[in-house]
């Protein structure tokens, strides 16, 4: 159960409500969080803006970015984040709900290559304890072809998942929301 009632859309500033409705196309999978953030427009706009930039731009494959999101949400115990981004994966790729559950548990997907396995292993470690990273973790990423730009991109996805997990958990959002 959420800790806050979602705001009444009818009472939201008209311009902000329009932004909310326009963003529904690409952000419907985390709609409950977006609705709560309408209470603080800067955070609402940050969520949409960061998500568009980080998840839809850059060099890393979008599918893998969403897998990072689900994996990190699983590590942090954020059922809402895992379910929301799992919904994106099942709607837009061949990944099944059982495979989403496997990602949440920390298992690799069937047929995952070394690149994906290494990135997801790094993501799990960072989400669990970011202060424990060591040069060997970066070296492992380099071994499967990542350069500095890619490392920062992966780190940014992990950090964004932290932003959303932290907010969703604090607001009391759960997997079924």
């Amino acid at each position: 159960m959420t800790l806050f009632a979602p705001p009444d859309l009818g009472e939201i500033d008209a311009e902000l409500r329009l932004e909310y409705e326009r963003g529904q196309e690409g952000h419907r999978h985390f709609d409950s969080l977006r609705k709560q953030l309408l209470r603080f427009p800067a955070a609402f706009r940050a969520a949409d803006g960061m998500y568009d930039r980080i998840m839809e731009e850059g060099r890393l494959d979008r599918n893998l970015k969403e897998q990072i999101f689900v994996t990190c949400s699983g590590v942090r115990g954020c059922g809402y984040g895992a379910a929301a981004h799992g919904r994106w994966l099942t709607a837009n790729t061949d990944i099944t709900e059982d495979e989403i559950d496997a990602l949440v548990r920390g298992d690799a997907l069937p047929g995952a290559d070394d690149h994906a396995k290494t990135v997801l292993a790094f993501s799990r470690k960072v989400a669990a304890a970011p202060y424990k990273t060591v040069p060997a973790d970066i070296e492992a990423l380099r071994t499967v072809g990542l350069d500095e730009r890619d490392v920062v991109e992966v780190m940014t996805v992990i950090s964004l998942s932290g932003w959303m997990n932290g907010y969703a958990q604090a607001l009391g959002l759960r997997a079924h929301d």
Partner: protein
Amino acid sequence: MALIPYPELDELSVDTRLHFERFTAEHGRPSLLRWMLGWSGPASAAMDQLYNPVFATGQLGRRLKELLFVAASEQRRCFYCMGGHSRFLVREYGYTRQEVEAMRRGGSVDGMDARELALVRLVRVAAADGAEITAGEIDDVRAHGWDDDEIVEALSTVAHAFYTNTFAQAMCLEDDIEMGDGSDGYF
């Protein structure tokens, strides 16, 4: 030492380089966090949409949100974020180091009222494990006169801490501020 090198100016995208040059002209060099994010244009652009809009707008005021942010970062043991923003509170708002240390741990100092302390307590719980927040704890904050919009705004500082703490800790970013005032660095 950071786990990867910081980008040189000629390694930045055109947009990011222009942003860096503009920022440097107005404020001095970007923070090490911003500098490291410079490897990725989208990451830099995303940060533009996060820090200033979230900290500079809303109902709570910059000082209180900076305080909530250092409380969250202290709970998550991020010395980079806690240290940099604690020094910001000293420099911009006239607190002593001891006052900031007390406040970020949920203690009270002169001029800080019970209402603000209630938010600091909530933010520290959320930063430790948001799933542990109870309806009773939210009611306690409401009883101190905060409405739900303000509480959601306060919790944005926790989300911000999750973002920047994760990045700074995992990349092993160094202390960031050139002191030059005889002070002893981050605290």
